[in-house]
């Protein structure tokens, strides 16, 4: 064992990372077990860090960056770091990069993360691990700030959707939030186009009897990039809320008007029209 004097022995993961940083000769695996999918739009500041963590989740792994609507060097950086880059001049739309990335992936496990926040690989591995252990959809257990009387509308929507699905144990866990991982089987059942509407994908997964579980908590609320209120936050909120309602209507059309919940023996015909 090599050990230079006066230098403290580093933990395994740190040693590996420093070596990789020096020699950026990472290349996507030809037969990957894990595909990491990163939709990105103008994220040149963060993308390097994100890819560096992403490639450490598994030995056999590929990193796919869906660079859409980029006017900066996001794609070039990703390419230089050995990731597979899918370029689109036009912005694909919120969460639409997930569908495109999933179509281009070949791993048994699909891990989805965002390009705007760096999540350490130790916080990514549990999701991959859960799917490798036989899970189909491994969700982030993060609920958001819930120690208040009135919570953010999106948090409320997530909780309610899970309740309606008969999965209140999932609390606020949702495919809307990253990181999450799905199995290839789950991708086939859900359909890659539906990954663009994450609540809908979640509903389909639960309704199809896939193994959906909240496996690990990553407080993404704190990692999220601060954005100005004016930059489409309200619009985004409306899109996410509409997604939830759309997902619910899908569920109701595939079960019954009450989503399979009891009527407790109401004698409705006593009322008449």
């Amino acid at each position, binding site marked *: 064992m090599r050990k230079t004097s006066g230098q403290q022995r580093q933990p395994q993961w740190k040693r590996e990372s420093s070596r990789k940083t020096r020699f950026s000769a990472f290349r996507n695996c030809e037969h990957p077990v894990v595909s990491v999918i990163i939709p990105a*739009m*103008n994220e040149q500041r963060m993308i390097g860090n994100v890819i560096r963590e992403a490639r450490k989740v598994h030995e056999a792994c590929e990193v796919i960056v869906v660079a*859409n*609507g980029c*006017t900066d060097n996001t794609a070039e950086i990703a390419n230089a770091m050995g990731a597979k880059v899918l370029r689109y001049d*036009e*912005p*694909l*739309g*919120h*969460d*639409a990069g997930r569908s495109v990335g999933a179509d281009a992936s070949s791993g048994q496990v699909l891990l989805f993360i965002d390009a705007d926040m760096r999540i350490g690989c130790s916080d990514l591995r549990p999701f991959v691990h859960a799917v490798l252990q036989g899970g189909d959809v491994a969700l982030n257990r993060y*609920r958001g700030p*819930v*120690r*208040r*009387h*009135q*919570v953010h*509308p999106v*948090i*409320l*929507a997530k*909780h*309610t959707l899970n*309740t*309606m699905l008969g999965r*209140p144990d999932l609390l606020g866990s949702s495919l809307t939030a990253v990181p999450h991982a799905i199995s290839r089987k789950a991708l086939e059942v859900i359909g890659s186009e539906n990954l*663009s*509407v994450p609540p809908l994908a979640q509903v389909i997964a639960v309704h199809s009897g896939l193994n959906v579980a909240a496996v690990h908590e990553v407080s993404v609320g704190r990692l999220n990039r601060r*954005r100005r209120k004016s*930059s*489409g*936050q309200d*619009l*985004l909120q*409306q*899109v996410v*809320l*509409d997604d939830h*309602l*759309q997902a*619910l*209507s899908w569920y*109701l059309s595939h079960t019954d*008007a*009450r*989503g399979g*919940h*009891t*009527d*407790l*023996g*109401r*004698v*409705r015909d*006593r*009322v*008449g*029209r």
Partner: protein
Amino acid sequence: MTGKKVKTGTSARTRRRRVGRARKQAVFKTKRRASAIQGGSGSPWIRQALQAGWRAGNAARDAEAETKLLFVESHLQSTFSEWIYATMKSMPEYSLMKRMSAAYVQGYNEGAGSIEGGVPLPLQGSAAAVVCASSEEDSLDPMLAELERLPLKHIILVLNGSRDNSYSHARSHPLVTAVYYPELLGHDVGRSIGARLTDADTVLFCDGDMVIAAEELAPFIYAVDGGGCDAALNDLSGYLPLFEHQDEVTHCKSYLNLALGRSDLGASSLTAVPHALSGRMIRDIGASQLTVPPKAQALAILHGYRVEAVHAVDVFKGNRKRAGNTGKRNAVAELIIGDHAEALGELWRQRYAFRSDTGAKRKEVASRRNAV
């Protein structure tokens, strides 16, 4: 267990002080009840109401007015109503109206030497109550007695699957029209049946298993009759714990309001009683919709009716605990969750079904958020 331990730990002095404080509070309460104008009322209207009540009561003593069977036709109710419309330019908040009403009754009783205990309200239209009950003979009698203190035209009592003497109790109340179903109809079906049987302009909905004071029921009628409200809901926001401790039913209620664009309503819901609805709204959306209260709420808001949370009555404390409605994931919770599913499905059909611009919206969000 721990509570007992704490008690034995307190010193005699603390205990004495506590008893003293309790006694003082009790005295204060009786004093307030004895006179509506004491305790720093602040408003000149209260004294005026007392005086007007006295004059009306005195006139009633002189005229030997015949006693009416129904409170709504009584001399007290009609003179109060007349006096309010003659003196006040606009209708005050219920908090003031409640005290004026109490002062007027006090003055009236002093003037007439009577012991009227009603809650007179100035009403523009007629009001009625719908009470749903099954086997609630213990609480039904006092509940109906409280309702009879309000200026109601009639009370529709929908009894279903009753296994005790509820029916004979109801017969002793002159205002009550009882509808009897030998079998259980299920939750909230009685509301539809009761609503169909009344043509009143304001309909108050109550349950027979909980006794609520007339003063706490009056604000719902008051908001619909004079306040231009079409659905006056019980405002439960003050009784809720933090979100993480709220149950799933509360989440559903809040979410429905959010999806309807009315997050200001919090978790207020037509599922909870008491609430009052306007007759015109019931006739428009259909009395049969009241069987699924959240759906009726969604329809009311979608049709542009005014829905407000007007008054807070703590129904958690008084609610009877049964095998079906306690614990997590109980049958009643499942029922209410299903009701909200129906309501949200209706919302989707009416508002979103013919819209397909989500793709464009997603792109706009992405460009606005991530453009350099």
